[in-house]
């Protein structure tokens, strides 16, 4: 049976891990198969958890989260016959599939939307824990904003420096209010569970927010401008299918705009917020990124943002 081990955020983080869970559940529903899963309690348990699943015969094993890198490098070598899929990190081993997302291009598009929507020329960004992966979101977002409005201001915030930052909607809400005070009228939340505070604050203030990871448009219709969806669910589902049917491929798999790995969400809840002009403009940018005409800089490639 396939297995999935969630990262410390937990199975129901309304975001990354939960998307993984949804993908696995969808697979189970469609195929009638069964899968095992486990929530990690702390960092020291990673290797052990991997070994446990591998030696119990689980195959493939999907692990969403960049923190798994070191543990997987070790364990993948010990179980050459087990297939592993890691999300958000690259591990170079013959039996590992590394799935990475182009969060920067998805963020670029929602940044462009934010700039198009903004009346004030100031937009905000509220990140969760202050780590390079979140800087990658910010950096893409900022490039997108500036592509539409080079004079725009982008305010950058993080809710904290500990993992508690993923679950601090109160701080996130205050950061959002502060952004509004400074003139922002659209704020992008890349903060896991804390993002709910951003969305709430925007709804309370009658301003706009942008959700992340899964489609959060439905949370406050009319206030959530769009969501930068990251299809972790698709990646997990694909890994389950490939791992159980013999279509498995190892190596790096990039989930980007082209294969709908990342996207901006458009549905009934935000139809009224996004005009046809805006949509046309963003679709144009999207096409250009896919074609390579526009290069969006990836923060994690060199830890800088232009």
């Amino acid at each position, binding site marked *: 049976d396939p297995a999935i081990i969630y990262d410390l955020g937990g199975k*129901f983080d309304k975001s990354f891990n939960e998307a993984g869970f949804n993908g696995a559940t969808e697979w189970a529903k469609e195929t009638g198969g069964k899968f095992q899963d486990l929530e990690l309690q702390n960092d020291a348990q990673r290797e052990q958890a991997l070994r446990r699943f591998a030696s119990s015969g689980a195959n493939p094993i999907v692990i969403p989260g960049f923190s798994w890198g070191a543990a997987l490098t070790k364990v993948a070598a010990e179980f050459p016959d087990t297939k592993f899929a890691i999300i958000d990190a690259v591990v170079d081993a013959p039996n590992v599939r590394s799935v990475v997302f182009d969060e920067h291009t998805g963020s670029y598009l929602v940044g462009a939307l934010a700039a198009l929507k903004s009346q004030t020329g100031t937009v905000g960004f509220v990140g969760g824990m202050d780590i390079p992966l979140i800087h990658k979101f910010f950096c893409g977002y900022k490039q997108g904003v500036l592509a539409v409005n080079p004079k725009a201001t982008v305010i950058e*915030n993080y809710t904290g420096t500990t993992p508690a930052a993923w679950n601090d909607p*109160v701080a996130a809400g205050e950061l959002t209010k502060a952004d509004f005070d400074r003139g922002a009228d659209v704020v992008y939340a890349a903060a896991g569970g804390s993002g709910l505070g951003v969305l709430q604050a925007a709804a309370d203030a009658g301003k706009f927010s942008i959700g992340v990871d899964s489609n959060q448009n439905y949370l406050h219709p009319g206030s959530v401008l769009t969501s930068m969806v990251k299809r972790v669910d698709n990646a997990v589902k694909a890994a389950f299918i490939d791992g159980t049917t013999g279509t498995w491929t190892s190596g790096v798999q990039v989930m980007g705009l082209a294969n709908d790995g990342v996207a901006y969400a458009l549905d009934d809840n935000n139809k009224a917020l996004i005009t046809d002009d805006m949509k046309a403009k963003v679709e144009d940018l999207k096409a250009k990124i896919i074609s390579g005409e526009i290069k969006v800089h990836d923060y994690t490639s060199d830890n800088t943002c232009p």
Partner: protein
Amino acid sequence: MDFELLISMLAATLRLTTPLLLACLAGLYSERSGIFDIGLEGKMLAAAFGAASVAALTANMWLGLLAGIAVSIAMSMIHGAASITLKGNQIISGVAINFLAAGLTTLLGLTWFHQGGRTPPLPEGGRFLPITLPFASEISGIPVIGPIYAGLISGHNILVYVAFLAVPVTAWVLYRTRFGLRLRAVGENPKAVDTAGISVTRLRYQALLITGVLCGLAGAYFSIAQGSGFGNNMTAGKGYIALAALIFAKWRPLQAMFATLLFGFLDALQIRLQGSTIPGLGWEVPVQLIQALPYILTVVLLAGFIGKAVGPKAGGVPYTKER
């Protein structure tokens, strides 16, 4: 920084101070009675969960508030049973309460709501909304006073006002009433209270009851006033900050307000400093430094100006007559 921004920052200060202040006063009652309370965090968390659960189900913020208070009182009574009746170690008991709240809130949230331990977003009526005080819009045009009244004093939810009202009330209770006299005495010398014919046990339970109520208010503030729904571990260490503020304030109510206002202000400042380049520095201030600023400043102030804080003398020691 212009005036508007200052006002909005001070308003944020009040919002951020509120839960700290409530928790700090809660701790004040408990510690003044001689019971250490490191479990403020857990009580707030449990109350936040209780309040949000009930508010989500009933769409009634008042029922939510009551539920939060009830849950917090229940936790407080566990603490009382352990540290008053069973004469156990008050710090272990507090640590246990923090663990219990962290585990139970998420566990129950998972089984009841299936949303990763969160409660559903609150429906209409389930949340305390900002109140506009009378004449706020009328006088907002008047320079200085207008923005101060309309932007700073008006426009908070009711729990904010309750928290600040609790300060004079606490001072009055502590220094002007029989209960306050006895409370102050029992934290200093329970034997003196006992030999004066007053039950130490009863007095301490009463204090913990008040602690429970105030922590309940603080917890409800998190989930059904400032926020909208419960999130895992959403109190994020505020209970410990409140404890620090209490020591900072040397266990006195008015000073507790100033101490928590300081923390609230530094937090608001931190939030506003993020993402803005400080003029004239020539280098970018790392965001981590700004985030650590409240804590660093606390240490500096403490070392520089506050001096020694001596708490209630009988604090932390269970009262035993025999053996």
